[in-house]
């Protein structure tokens, strides 16, 4: 786990500094302990904030500023799932623990004859149709019969190979083992159960669990009841009746009958974003959150440190950066910004993007330009033009924003994780915030 709470630097007494040192990357590096955390990895969080919103403690350690902002907005706008289920007089409960025979101390006769959902019997939205029948009279923890009453919203504790929760709805009573937890909803709330299955399987839920769950996202892949109950969700009845809710219900019905394809996940995520009324930049944050949650698995970690492609990941970064700046420039329509990506070879250690401010209205555009020499020549030219010793700076700080009067140059390591959408949003935020320093705004 790469997060660290750095109390050794003697912060002010009411502050905790939390840093995500990106150890997922460093772990693969022999000397990872020698690599410094970056400034952009550090978030300050007051103890008062932690007391008020305990979710933020982990979020500040593993998340970024935009994550915290969105987390704040969602938790203020929506009640959490647990609170809303309580209005329906239900909650998530752990399932049956059969246990070893010597521990079978409790009567389980009223469960006899029900179908039994075991560890491998559930996939996304689907429950196997050949479940075994429970035929024991005793168990270690049989639980109450009513927790197995349909409709059941069932969540698998462990994620398998990818960061989306595995959730399905049982329309008939069944026993689930303690590798699951489930909420028994009122009979007339079947649609709600199916809608919640989609929400809990979405990128939004994975982003939220990665930021806040007590175990999931700390190199464990396990969800707990509390983690799921904390998810902010739109008010139930309006969610089911909304256009996005109806789209999700139609798709969930289809996905009960077939494999979920990659494109289906995009459709699920977009519909859930619509359900929550999220804007474009929040969608970027959440999609990146799903990606970051995938770093719990080796495939995801390795993908995050693959050198980025200037024409793909860096171009996408530049587009997202410009979307923030366009938001400001479009108000007056007097200026606009464009991006130039220096087309460095794949083996180069850094990637470089220059954002140039120009007069006149217009949309931000991204172009790829020839480096006209090696990386060191590129850096030397930028340094000379902007009167900055870049080579010295880049050896101390791995990420740099080099400012000129009408331009800003972003220099970062080549690994993909530095060029994610959320990094673009935050780098643009920094450029906007830095414009306040002059004191003329």
């Amino acid at each position, binding site marked *: 786990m790469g997060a660290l709470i750095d109390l050794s630097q003697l912060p002010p007494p009411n502050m905790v500094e939390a840093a995500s040192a990106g150890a997922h990357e460093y772990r693969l590096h022999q000397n990872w302990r020698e690599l410094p955390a970056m400034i952009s990895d550090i978030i300050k969080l007051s103890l008062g904030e932690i007391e008020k919103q305990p979710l933020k403690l982990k979020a500040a350690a593993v998340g970024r500023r935009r994550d915290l902002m969105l987390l704040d907005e969602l938790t203020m706008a929506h009640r959490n799932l647990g609170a809303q289920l309580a209005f329906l007089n239900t909650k998530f409960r752990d399932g049956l623990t059969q246990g070893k025979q010597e521990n079978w101390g409790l009567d389980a006769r009223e469960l006899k004859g029900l179908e039994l959902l075991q560890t491998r019997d559930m996939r996304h939205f689907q429950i196997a149709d050949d479940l075994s029948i429970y035929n024991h009279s005793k168990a270690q923890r049989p639980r109450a019969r009513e927790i197995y009453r349909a409709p059941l919203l069932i969540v698998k504790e462990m994620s398998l190979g990818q960061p989306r929760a595995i959730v399905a709805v049982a329309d008939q009573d069944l026993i689930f083992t303690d590798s699951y937890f489930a909420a028994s909803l009122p009979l007339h709330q079947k649609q709600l159960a199916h809608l919640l299955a989609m929400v809990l399987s979405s990128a939004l839920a994975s982003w939220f669990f990665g930021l806040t769950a007590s175990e999931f996202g700390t190199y464990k892949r396990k969800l707990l009841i509390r983690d799921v109950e904390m998810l902010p969700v739109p008010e139930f009845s309006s969610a089911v009746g909304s256009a996005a809710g109806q789209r999700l219900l139609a798709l969930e019905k289809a996905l009960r009958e077939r494999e979920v394809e990659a494109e289906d996940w995009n459709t699920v995520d977009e519909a859930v974003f619509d359900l929550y009324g999220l804007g474009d930049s929040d969608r970027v944050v959440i999609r990146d959150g799903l990606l970051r949650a995938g770093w719990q698995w080796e495939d995801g970690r390795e993908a995050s440190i693959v050198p980025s492609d200037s024409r793909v990941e860096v171009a996408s970064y530049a587009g997202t950066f410009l979307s923030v700046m366009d938001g400001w420039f479009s108000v007056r329509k007097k200026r606009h910004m464009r991006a130039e990506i220096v087309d460095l070879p794949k083996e180069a250690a850094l990637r470089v993007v220059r954002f140039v401010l120009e007069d006149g209205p217009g949309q931000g555009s991204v172009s790829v330009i020839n480096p006209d020499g090696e990386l060191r020549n590129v850096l030397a030219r930028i340094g000379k033009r902007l009167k900055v010793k870049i080579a010295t700076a880049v050896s101390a700080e791995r990420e740099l924003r080099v400012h000129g009067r009408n331009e800003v140059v972003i220099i970062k390591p080549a690994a993909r994780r530095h060029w994610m959408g959320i990094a673009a949003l935050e780098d643009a935020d920094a450029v906007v915030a830095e414009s306040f320093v*002059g004191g003329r705004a």
Partner: protein
Amino acid sequence: MRIPYETSPALGREFIELAPEVVAVILLTLGAGWQQACSAADVNADAGEVLMTERLRDGMRSALKNSPLKLIVLPGTESRSKSSVLLPDGRTDIPLMMIEVFLRTQEHDPHAIIECKRIAGSDTHLCREYLVEGVDRFASGKYGENHAVDFMVGYVLSGISAAAVSGVNAYLSRVSRTADRLVPVVFIDSQTWHSRHARAKPSDFIDLHHAFLMVADGAESE
């Protein structure tokens, strides 16, 4: 909005100057917020300043919802003109905070302040109040002592906004403060005004942007 800033990995001597865009965003948000405020039946020429400001604040928040511009409209708050002043000596109507600046600096003071006043060009008392109880709070450093730019809103109870500006400027002429006059500027599509006021050293002058918002049943349409 001169904000202390933490050490960052930014290099270079000159930063991109977004001040005009920030001002335009705030003025536009004011306009959009007022449009929503006016849909409330209780926003009329008989309404008190506090009610209209509360409606305006709600309208601005609604206008900023899902906006890529991460401005936060704070509640009206008691404020202290200087850190050496312990007990609050003012009450700012609409403080604004830019979330990115706050997250980076933990700077709890607002990053821009909007002071709101009722006004009508034909009412010399209200025109005087606009200056003495509004503009002069910025000029004296009571509000926004560390800001370079702030904002005033006039709720135009009757007449048109140009008449309200004339009324304010006429008062300034009477008290021999012509340098403080409001002049029209083109920042956004709708008409706004600008004034500049000297402050005691070591503060530099402060620029104020003025938006005059028409109260539906009192003011004449422009």
